[in-house]
């Protein structure tokens, strides 16, 4: 333990001596910081204190000395642990206080981060040796690292939004302005009910979210019932639906709907020519956004509800039938009540997704303003009003968090989970005739509609000018992705730049996301520690924070010292990491719950420490889960728009924000062509994943032991 402490102390010393304390704008290139160390802006902590007499840094230097004194003191055992814990806790507090209160000339840089990490890990190794047998330096360090990262990149930015919202024009803080903005009539007014124009964005968002939540749950249930309890032949095709939301760039559905129902849309034209309907803009507004969200989120509800419907133990249905209940009675009185929590979960998921949705309202909203788009316009509009954006963000956050809390509370109380993990033989009974026909009548037309919408993406990308010049052309593709061999290979398409940036950033974000997500999953599944529930809640919270709120919170938090990140690629990577972390956590939790805990214990009793256990036992067995987490975080980073749109810069333009630009200019053709290319890119990625994981699964199947993978299916 003392060895670990010395190691971290050395790392801290090194950071303090050799790494620049502040971000140095002059330094360009990877090793240029070395030459900058001698100048004031590029100096390290040590040099700033010694040469440039920066008084604000004195306390931190003293803390470092104190830590060294503890590490080299003759103390041992518990007294050393107590000393190390208390001194490093104080040091960390001093450093944080410095970052928050001191008047910093620039953002902190590697020196500060290195020193902070070393203090953090000195603290965690101190804490681990305070505790008895199961205090493990690796595990406590991991917990500390996840807490600090989540705190820094989820809670700290949200705190900034709060403080922006509570700040008064004169610089002091108070609630008066916040309340007047929070409950402002323009946010909440209900004039649409009385027939006078549109309602406030909060009302619109809420109404839309309730409608979307209900409708996606119904549709999802119909699909799930068909997929699991009918003799329907094309079940595999239905299951493909579940992949759609993952690979669909955010505007595509909105654009496809415009191509169908817009003023120049195919259906509009048809109705006009044959039935004499007027060409109107009806698709812009509530209806259009609602339909687009249904198309986008029904597959998510479907995915959740497949698990729920399958989770109802067949033996209960069989028991009901042996007691002479008909299929309909069985469904009505046994299966449906058992599914109720799952249905509530699906509803809340749809509700949250709808509230957080940015792409569809942006394209189709028209006058129908919702919170997520209003936040965007408050920032990028004619007058940038970050206080208004902050307050709207808080309104939105309140709603999503409310739904999230409700979901947690609902699932936490009275679990009806009927999957026991024991082999439950028996089969789900088929639906009654009436129910089956209803499901078919609802789901199949919808599936056909989805197919039409997605085929629009293909046609939209090769038609010259939709509705006016319907000739086929590849011009959109060549404009976006043109290349030229005349003088070697030159990529002269307009989209290449953002395409490669997107791939690069997504590729950098994916492993980090997977790492943080799986590490968190490991702690949640395998470790018991005080405050674990709060820890779990905090890590899953970022799921409930809408992307637009993340966007403005990052702008507000990371545009000024102590941490300046805006305009860099790093801010995009970090945003992706913490937006997509819940995906990795859930995947990891699901995979890890299937590994018998005695495998870890066997490894530990055989003399391996927990790091070795993770490296040699858990990680190899999680192979497919790791790969899946990698690919999904990669793909989600590509399709993400709501947070990204605030964070892109000229140097780091992303595909989705490029598409937003084209949409705003009315260049639908190129936007759709780009989306099609993204879809293909992601399909290739997922296909590769399936190939690799599929083969791995086969390769594992013949050496899988019956005890190791029990058929525990997570219900939700």
């Amino acid at each position: 333990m003392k060895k670990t402490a010395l190691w971290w102390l050395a790392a801290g010393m090194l950071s303090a001596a050799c790494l620049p304390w502040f971000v140095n704008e002059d330094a360009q290139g990877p090793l240029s910081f070395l030459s900058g160390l001698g100048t004031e802006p590029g100096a390290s902590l040590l040099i700033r204190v010694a040469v440039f007499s920066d008084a604000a840094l004195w306390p931190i230097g003293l803390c470092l000395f104190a830590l060294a004194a503890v590490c080299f003191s003759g103390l041992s055992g518990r007294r050393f642990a107590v000393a190390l814990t208390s001194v490093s806790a104080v040091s960390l507090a001093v450093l944080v206080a410095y970052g928050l209160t001191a008047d910093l000339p620039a953002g902190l840089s590697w020196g500060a981060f290195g020193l902070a990490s070393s203090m953090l890990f000195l603290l965690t190794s101190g804490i681990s040796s305070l505790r008895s047998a199961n205090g493990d330096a690796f595990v406590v360090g991991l917990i500390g690292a996840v807490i600090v990262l989540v705190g820094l990149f989820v809670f700290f930015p949200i705190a900034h939004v709060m403080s922006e919202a509570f700040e008064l024009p004169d610089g002091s803080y108070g609630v008066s302005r916040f309340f007047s903005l929070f409950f402002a009539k323009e946010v909440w007014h209900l004039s649409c009910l009385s027939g006078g124009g549109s309602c406030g964005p909060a009302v619109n968002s809420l109404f839309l979210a309730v409608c979307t939540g209900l409708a996606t749950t119904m549709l999802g249930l119909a699909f799930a019932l068909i997929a699991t309890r009918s003799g329907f032949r094309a079940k595999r095709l239905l299951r493909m639906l579940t992949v759609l939301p993952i690979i669909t760039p955010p505007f595509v559905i909105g654009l496809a709907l415009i191509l169908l129902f817009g003023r120049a849309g195919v259906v509009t034209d048809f109705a006009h020519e044959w039935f004499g309907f007027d060409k109107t803009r009806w698709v812009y507004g509530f209806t259009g956004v609602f339909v687009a969200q249904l198309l986008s989120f029904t597959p998510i509800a479907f995915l959740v509800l497949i698990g729920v419907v399958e989770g109802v133990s067949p033996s209960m249905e069989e028991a009901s039938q042996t007691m002479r209940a008909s299929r309909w009675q069985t469904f009505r009185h046994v299966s449906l009540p058992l599914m109720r929590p799952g249905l509530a979960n699906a509803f809340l998921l749809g509700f949250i997704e709808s509230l957080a949705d940015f792409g569809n309202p942006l394209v189709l909203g028209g006058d129908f303003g919702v919170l997520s788009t209003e936040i965007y316009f408050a920032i990028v509009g004619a007058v940038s009003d970050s206080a208004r954006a902050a307050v709207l963000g808080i309104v939105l956050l309140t709603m999503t968090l409310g739904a999230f809390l409700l979901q947690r509370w609902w699932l936490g109380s009275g679990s009806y989970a009927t999957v026991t993990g024991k082999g439950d033989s028996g089969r789900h009974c088929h639906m009654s005739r009436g129910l089956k026909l209803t499901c078919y009548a609802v789901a199949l037309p919808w599936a056909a509609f989805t197919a039409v919408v997605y085929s629009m993406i293909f046609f939209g990308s090769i038609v010259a000018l939709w509705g006016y010049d319907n000739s086929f052309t590849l011009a959109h593709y060549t404009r976006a992705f043109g290349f030229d061999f005349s003088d070697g290979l030159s990529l002269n398409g307009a989209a290449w730049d953002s395409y490669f940036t997107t791939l690069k950033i997504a590729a950098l974000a994916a492993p980090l996301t997977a790492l943080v997500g799986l590490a968190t999953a490991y702690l949640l599944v395998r470790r018991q520690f005080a405050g674990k529930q709060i820890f779990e809640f905090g890590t899953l919270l970022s799921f409930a924070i809408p992307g637009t709120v993340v966007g403005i919170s990052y702008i507000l938090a990371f545009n000024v010292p102590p941490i300046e990140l805006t305009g860099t690629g790093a801010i995009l990577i970090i945003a992706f990491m913490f937006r997509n972390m819940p995906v990795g956590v859930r995947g990891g939790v699901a995979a890890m719950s299937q590994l018998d805990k005695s495998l870890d214990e066997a490894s530990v009793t055989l003399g391996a420490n927990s790091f070795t256990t993770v490296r040699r036992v858990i990680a190899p067995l999680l192979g497919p889960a790791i790969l899946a987490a990698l690919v999904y975080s990669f793909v989600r980073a590509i399709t993400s728009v709501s947070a990204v749109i605030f964070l892109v810069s000229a140097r780091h333009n992303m595909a989705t924000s490029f598409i937003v630009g084209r949409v705003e200019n009315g260049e639908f053709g190129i936007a759709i062509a780009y989306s099609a290319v993204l879809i293909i890119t992601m399909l290739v990625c997922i296909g590769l994943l399936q190939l690799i994981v599929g083969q791995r699964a086969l390769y594992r199947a013949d050496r899988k032991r019956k005890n190791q993978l029990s058929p525990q299916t997570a219900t939700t």
Partner: protein
Amino acid sequence: MSSQSGRVQMQGVQKRYGEVQAVKDLNLTIEAGELVTLLGPSGCGKTTTLRMLAGLEDVSAGKITIGGQDVTLQAATYRNVAMVFQSYALFPHMTVMENVAYGLTVSNLPKRTVQAKAEAGLETVGLAGYGSRYPSELSGGQQQRVAVARAVVLEPEVLLFDEPLSNLDAKLRRHVREEIRQIQQDLGITALYVTHDQEEAMAVSDKIVVMCDGEIAQMGSPLELYTRPSSAFIADFIGDANLLPCRVAGVEGDSVDVEIGAVRVRSRSNQALGKTATLAVHPHNLELVDLGNLNVIPGTVRMAAYLGDHMEYAVECEAGELFVADHRMTHQHQRGDRVGVRVEAENTSVLPS
């Protein structure tokens, strides 16, 4: 393969989970080279005790020493113990050889030593030549032996078994438990063994510790527990004994005369007795005879089952229902027969009621 087996002492060990006290003030000594079994119904704290010795659970209070060294605050990684798990917990992504060598490899021993020791380990359990297979390619019994080999190659001071046979079928169980006992005795390793199966416990143990509700109910050799149970719980749990309420008629040293109705039995007891007591009789110490005999308890056969080498009866009588295992197959009785139950006084004992 040798082992510097150690003496284990658990002193005043407790384990609390919030309000629940899983283990209450446990004092237990395992002499070097001895195999001690923790036996008890599920939830009695036996597995918790084992896991505390392994270092997989924190100790709420008390002290654990292995070979004289205090390990109470030591993590599992650093304790010189090895464990055989109920599910075997073989690493499915490693070969048998890699599994057996795992503990040696992570201790950074030289490669050649690792190889040699792992091979010797596989030889000990009779699986030499199986090294390159994966666990899934072995039968349940073979997997179990790999788990044992993986534990013994570390030459631990203490070997722990957590219900090692519960995943095997009944026939194999007997065979594997003999092997386990053989290996443990050959290597002279101190061992703690957890099971809920009393037959298994009696077959493998030097000493059995019966636990109930987080406490030790009785400990002793299998013989002592079977013939001298200290409580009705032990008599029932170890010997499936019938517990008959009786009157104490006279005490002479440790021999006691008791009366069940009109029937008088000379039994023994080493505990202070009141006027009434409980007579513990093993099922095979009862036999069914004609009602006309002297000194028999009258009753009616409620259930009769033919089990090949013996008959099992449930006999309804005034004192309650008696469970009888009758090995004399010549006289078989039917359901509904009026019979007399004769008590073979030899192996009975009287317990305070």
